[in-house]
């Protein structure tokens, strides 16, 4: 069964003339890692908010179509209930810390307390989440004393502990240094290996090429493509949609190096395997 189904989704912000999302349809399987790419203003964040029900439940506006998570229609549910099925992590780690808790451990508990999870179960889930995000050693630290990468992993832990089947990440590494981004990517990859369905908006295209099972290309509110990374990044018209292919793909394109299926390599490894033969 499909974990997430988006059908003819349309959304327009209040006071806006244009559709931020224009007739989007796609479906995601359990455990898939989806990279969402597109230029600024393409509707990537809006799509994330629609998948989690923030649009139209929190952000009012004109809404059409359906978003189904495990068959549940998100627009018709309370955001707090959707949170147990789909979690979302935002760009800025600071604004995601509840701020009412003094330790990392308590911070993760915030959502669980709101959901009325029994204490025994709560502690178990917090331990698991801290372990999975590799921040168990920081359990007694004040959340605001953490580095950007640690804080962002804490934000993810707070969401994961609520046990959603899907996690949506909206540019989670854009404000982090290289090490912090790498920490977050590793953590997200771990989640994906544990069977969690991941949708991640990201500008670091080489990372998406390396981690994602499929890439969703969005431009001006429309879904342009939804395919495996080599398929999307081999498109000749990619730059027309405000996206540059990974640097490895650019090199191979110029050298006219293709893989067996007629597409260009997109990751360092794929590019290496091909280019090394030429150099020999």
């Amino acid at each position, binding site marked *: 069964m499909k974990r997430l189904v988006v059908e003819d989704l349309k959304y327009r912000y209040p006071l806006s003339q244009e559709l931020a999302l224009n007739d989007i349809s796609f479906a995601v399987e359990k455990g898939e890692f989806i990279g969402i790419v*597109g*230029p*600024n*203003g393409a509707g990537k964040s809006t799509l994330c908010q629609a998948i989690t029900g923030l649009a139209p439940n929190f952000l009012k506006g004109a809404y059409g179509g359906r978003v189904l998570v495990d068959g549940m229609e998100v627009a018709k549910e309370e955001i707090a209930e959707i949170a147990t099925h789909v979690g979302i992590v935002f*760009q800025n780690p600071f604004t995601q810390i509840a701020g009412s808790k003094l330790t990392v451990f308590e911070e993760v508990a915030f959502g669980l307390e709101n959901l009325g999870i029994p204490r025994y179960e709560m502690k178990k889930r917090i331990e698991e989440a801290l372990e999975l995000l590799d921040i168990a050693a920081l359990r007694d630290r004040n959340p605001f004393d953490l*580095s*950007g990468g640690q804080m962002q992993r804490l934000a993810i832990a707070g969401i994961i502990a609520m046990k959603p089947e899907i996690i949506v990440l909206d*540019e989670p590494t*854009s*404000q*982090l*240094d*290289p*090490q*912090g981004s790498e920490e977050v990517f590793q953590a997200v990859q771990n989640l994906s290996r544990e069977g969690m369905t991941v949708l991640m908006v990201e*500008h670091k*295209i*080489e990372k998406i090429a390396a981690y994602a099972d499929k890439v969703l290309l969005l431009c001006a509110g429309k879904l342009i493509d939804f395919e495996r990374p080599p398929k999307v990044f081999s498109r000749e018209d990619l*730059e027309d949609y*405000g*996206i*540059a292919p*990974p*640097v*490895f793909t*650019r*090199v191979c394109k*110029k*050298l006219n190096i293709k893989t067996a299926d007629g597409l260009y390599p997109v990751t*360092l490894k794929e*590019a*290496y395997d091909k*280019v*090394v033969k*030429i*150099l020999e």
Partner: protein
Amino acid sequence: MNKIKVKNLHFTYSGGQEVLTGLNLHFDDRSTAIIGQNGAGKTTFVKLLKGLLKPIQGDVWIKGFNTKEHTVASLARHIGLVFQNPNDQIFKSRVIDEVMFGPLNIGQVEQEAKKNAVNALDMVGLSGQAEENPYDLSLSDRKLVSIASIVAMNTDILIFDEPTIAQDFCGREKIKKIISHLRKEGKLIITIIHDMDFVAETFERTIVFHRGMVLLDGEPREVFSQEQELREAYLEQPHVTRLAKKLGIKETLLTAEELIDYVKKPG
């Protein structure tokens, strides 16, 4: 000629550990990238250049002016700083007024300020939006407004603090063009940045900060060839450099173009 001279610079925030531990640096006309992990002291360093912080020990001279002896406002004629988040500075209701604010503050007359503002907006590609409210623009365009508002001050030195954060491909290319354009005008450009590919493609000099010290300093090719030191500073090589190394290429290659040329080259 040295535009900036830094001698034995130490800095500590009140009650904290030493953030900068005795830096000696000279800056000439070369466009310079400062890279390093968060907390390595990069932002503190540029705040000291700008005069927003004063050295605990040692000195900073901006075009011969010691920052200890001059106010931030008077140094602003010589050195500009574009902050990371454009929302930290925008307060006017028209783009053109926002861009003219700095020039007027440092004593440019109305006409001159206007001329500089128009030129700056033209350079960042926003001349069509001069009359709009900055908050009606997208975040990436607001970033360009904040860049224009420093460029219009027509200082000899410009510092950018992580200009490519949250920028898409087009925004990133635009900023690259702005930097090369300003470089051609003879200005010294210093940039704090986390995007190694961008550094490799754009700058003439790269300085690696690590724990309040300069770990590496030189041309990007030289700096990015030091794999061991980079790892020590929690940094990575540019993508192409890594691929070239894996391919067993002895030279340090920085950009896609260099790699393509290398592979095409007969022999």
